[in-house]
C-alpha cells in the first residue's frame, strides 16, 4: 500500500510476529509466572496438617493437597508399581526438584501439540487416530492375546487390563498438579484464551476448595487432613516492615495469577489484531510503527502496573497499622480511644475495611496526581532533545 514497505522480518505477519522480542518477552513473563505460581501453590497448599501426618505415624499417607509425589508414592505402595517411570514423574527427586521433570514433559507435550496444530487437517487426523489406536491397543491387546492364547485359565487375564487403568489413575494424580501448568503453557504458546482462563479458574477453584475444606465449620465434621492457612497474617517483617512472610506468599499467588493471565492474553490480543490486518497493511510502516508503540506501551504498563498492584496490595494489608497509629495520634477522644483499641481493627475485618479504604484513596488519586501530564512533558522534552541531537 505504502510506497516504502518494511522488510518482511519486521512485518506484522504472524510468523514474523512470533519472533518479535516483545511477544516472546510477554510469553516468557507469562510462563515464568505460571511456573512460579505452581511452585508457590505447592508450598502453600501442598502439605497435610501435622495432626493428620502424626495419625499415620511412619506409614505413607495421602491427603488431597496440591502436590503430586505424595499421591503417587501412596499409589505406588497401594498398587505395587507405577507405569510411568520415576524420572518422568519426578519421584526420583526430592523437594522442589520433583516438579522439574513433569514441567519439561508439559513443555514437550505443548511443542508436540503446536506441531500437530500447524500440520494440515489430514495429518492431524492421522496423528489423532494413531495415538488413539496405540493407546487402545496397549490397553486391550495384551488382555485379548492372553485371553485367546490361554483360554484354559480364564481368571487371570483381567490383570492385563489393570496396567492401563492404573496409568489413567497416575495421570489423574499428576494432572491435579500439572493439568493447569500444561493448559497454561498450551494457552501461552499455543495462543488459546480458553486455556489461559481455564488455568486461572482452576487455581481459583483449588484455593476456594482448600479454603472450604480447611474452614473450621467444615473440618469439625469432615477433616481431610489439609493444612489450613494460618488464621493471622503475622508480623510485618519484610520489605522494610511492609509485609509479613505469609502475606507476601499470598500476595505473590494473587499477583502471579493476574500477571500470568494478563501477559498471556496480551500476546493473544495483539496477535489477533495483527491477523485482522490485510496483507498489504502488514508491511505498511505506519501500521508497523504503531503496533510497536502499542505493544511497547503494553509491556511498560504490564510491568509498571503489576508492580504497583503488588505494592498497593501489600500497603493495603498493612494500612490498618497506619490507621491505628494515626487514630492513636489524635487527641484522646472517646471515639478515637475506642477505635484505637477496637478489636475489629486487630482482626481480619479491620484489615479488610482499612484495605478497602486505602484502595478508595488510591483510586481517587487519579483525580489528584497529574502523573500522565508529568511523564508527557518529560517525554516531549526527551523527543526534542533527541531531534536536536540528530
Amino acid at each position, binding site marked *: 500500500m505504502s510506497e516504502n514497505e518494511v522488510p518482511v522480518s519486521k512485518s506484522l505477519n504472524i510468523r514474523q510476529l512470533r519472533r518479535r522480542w516483545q511477544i516472546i518477552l510477554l510469553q516468557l513473563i507469562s510462563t515464568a509466572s505460571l511456573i512460579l505460581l505452581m511452585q508457590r501453590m505447592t508450598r502453600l497448599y501442598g502439605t497435610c496438617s501435622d495432626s493428620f501426618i502424626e495419625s499415620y505415624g511412619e506409614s505413607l499417607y495421602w491427603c488431597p493437597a496440591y502436590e503430586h509425589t505424595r499421591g503417587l508414592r501412596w499409589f505406588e505402595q497401594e498398587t505395587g508399581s507405577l507405569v510411568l517411570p520415576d524420572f518422568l514423574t519426578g519421584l526420583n527427586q526430592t523437594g522442589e526438584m520433583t516438579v522439574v521433570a513433569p514441567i519439561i514433559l508439559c513443555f514437550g507435550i505443548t511443542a508436540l501439540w503446536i506441531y500437530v496444530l500447524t500440520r494440515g487437517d489430514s495429518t492431524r487426523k492421522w496423528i489423532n487416530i494413531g495415538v488413539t489406536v496405540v493407546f487402545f491397543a496397549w490397553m486391550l491387546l495384551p488382555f485379548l492375546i492372553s485371553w485367546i492364547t490361554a483360554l484354559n485359565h480364564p481368571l487371570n487375564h483381567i490383570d492385563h487390563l489393570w496396567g492401563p487403568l492404573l496409568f489413567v489413575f497416575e495421570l489423574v494424580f499428576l494432572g491435579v498438579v500439572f493439568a493447569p501448568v500444561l493448559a497454561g503453557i498450551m494457552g501461552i504458546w499455543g495462543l488459546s484464551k480458553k486455556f489461559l482462563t481455564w488455568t486461572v479458574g482452576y487455581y481459583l477453584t483449588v484455593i476456594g476448595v482448600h*479454603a472450604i475444606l480447611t*474452614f473450621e465449620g467444615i473440618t469439625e465434621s469432615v477433616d481431610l487432613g489439609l493444612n489450613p492457612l494460618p488464621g493471622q*497474617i503475622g508480623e510485618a517483617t519484610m520489605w522494610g516492615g511492609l509485609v509479613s512472610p505469609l502475606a507476601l506468599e499470598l500476595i505473590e499467588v494473587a499477583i502471579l495469577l493476574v500477571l500470568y493471565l494478563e501477559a498471556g492474553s496480551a500476546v493473544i490480543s495483539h496477535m489477533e489484531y495483527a491477523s485482522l490486518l490485510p496483507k498489504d497493511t502488514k508491511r505498511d510502516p505506519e501500521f508497523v510503527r504503531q503496533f510497536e*508503540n502499542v505493544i511497547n*506501551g503494553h509491556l511498560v504498563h504490564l510491568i509498571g502496573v503489576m508492580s504497583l498492584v503488588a505494592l498497593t496490595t501489600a500497603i493495603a494489608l498493612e494500612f490498618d497499622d497506619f490507621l491505628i497509629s494515626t487514630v492513636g495520634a489524635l487527641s484522646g477522644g472517646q471515639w478515637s480511644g475506642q477505635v484505637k483499641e477496637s478489636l475489629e481493627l486487630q482482626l481480619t475485618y479491620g484489615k479488610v475495611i482499612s484495605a478497602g479504604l486505602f484502595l478508595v484513596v488510591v483510586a481517587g488519586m487519579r483525580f489528584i496526581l497529574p502523573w500522565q501530564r508529568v511523564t508527557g512533558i518529560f517525554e516531549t522534552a526527551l523527543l526534542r532533545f533527541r531531534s536536536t541531537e540528530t
Partner: protein
Amino acid sequence: MGKDRVRFGGLDMWTRKAAIMFTSGISLILIGMMISNFQLMIVGLAFLSLLAINGWVAGHSDLLIERQTSATNVYKGDDIVVSLTVTNKSYRRTQQLELFDNVPHEMKMRKGINQMRMNLGPGQTAKLRYVVRCPLRGHYTIGPVSVRYRNAFNLFVNETKMDDRSDITVFPQIRDIEEALLRSDVPKMYSGATTLKTPGPGMEFYALREYLPGDSFRSINWKALARTGEMMVNEKTRDAVTDVFVIVDTRDVSRIGTVLKNPLEMGTVAAASVSNYFLKRRDSVSLVTYGSRMDYLPPETGDKQYFKILSGLASVEAKGSMPLQAVTNALSPRMSRGSPVFIISSLEGDGTTLPAIRNLSGKGHEVIVLSPSSIDLERLVSRIPRMSYEVLKLERQNRLTAIAGYGAKVIDWMPDVELSQALLQIKLG
C-alpha cells in the same frame, strides 16, 4: 477533507472484564471473611487494586484528525483512496487507541484497512490509507471517525466520535452507446432539427413578458421597467436542439433481482448513458423519475445538467407504486411537441402503461420503451416453476407487443445483454 480535533473526556466505561473483576473481587473478600481465609481476601484485594491502579491511566488526549479522499463523485464500481492523518496535539501519550473510520457497508475494502491501533507519543502522527470500491449507486458518507481508548488490560474504554464526514456520490455507470444509437435509427430521427422557438433559459432573446414570482432578478428588463413602470422580464429562446425526455421507473417493483442487477440499476445505467449521449450532442435532456413520487428535472443542456441528472439518478431508490399515466399526464403540458421520450421501466404491475404510452404516441412523441426483463431478473433470485415462468414471459410478450402496436419502439432488455446491444434492437423492432 475534514480536519477536526477531538478531545477525550467524560468517564471511562467499564468493560465486562472490569465489572466481573470488581464483583468477583468483592465476593472473594467477603467470602474470604466468611470462612476466615486470607488467600481469598488477598486475591480479591489484588483484583480491586488492579482496578484502582489501572484507573490512573487515562487515554486522555487531544487528537487532530484529517481525512482526505481522492474523489467525491465517482461512477459505480470506481475506487476511492481515503487517507486519515492523526496527530496527537497534547503533551501526553494517547495510550492504546483504536481508530476506526466509519465506511458505509455498501463500500468494499479493496486495499488497506479503515482501522488502526495506535499509541501516539506527544506530537506524533500516524497515517492510515485505504482504498474502497463503490459497487452501488447512491449518496454515501464516510465518517465519522470513531476513536476508542482501551486500557492495556482491557478494563476501561472511552469512546468518542469525531464528526468529520466526507460525502461521496456514486453515479450510475455511463455506457458508450454512441455506436449503437448511430447504427440504430434513433439519432437520425432528430438530426438537422432547427432551434425550437420556445421560451427557455437560452442565450437568444425571445420576448418580453410580465414578471412572475420566482423569476430571477437577473432576467428583469430594467429598461422596460423604467419605461413602463411595470416589471418585465426577458424571455430567451432555448439553445437546445431537441428536448429528450427520459422517464425512469423507480417503483417498488423495480427492485426485483439481485442487488447489482435489477430493473432499477439497469434503468439508471441506461438513463445515465442515454442522457450523456444526447447532452453531448447539445440536446436538452429532461429526467423524470417516478416511484413514490415524481421528480422532474426540466430539460436543459450542458455539463451542469449532466451532473444534475447523475445526482438525481444516484439517489433514486425503489419505492412506491405511482402509475405511469399519472406521470405522463403531469408532464404533457411541459413537453414540447414531437420530442422523443425514453421510458425505462420493467412495465410490471401497472395497468396504466398501455393508455399512457398510447396517449404519448397519439400526441406525436417518439416513444422508445426500454424494458428490463423483470421476470428474467426475478429468476436470478427465486425459483420460478418452469410453466409459470413461460406464462409470465408470454404475458410480458403480450404487453410489449401491445405497446409496439401503439407505435412505440420497444426494447425487451434481457439481464445478460449489454445496453448498447439492447439498443440495437430498435432497428430490428
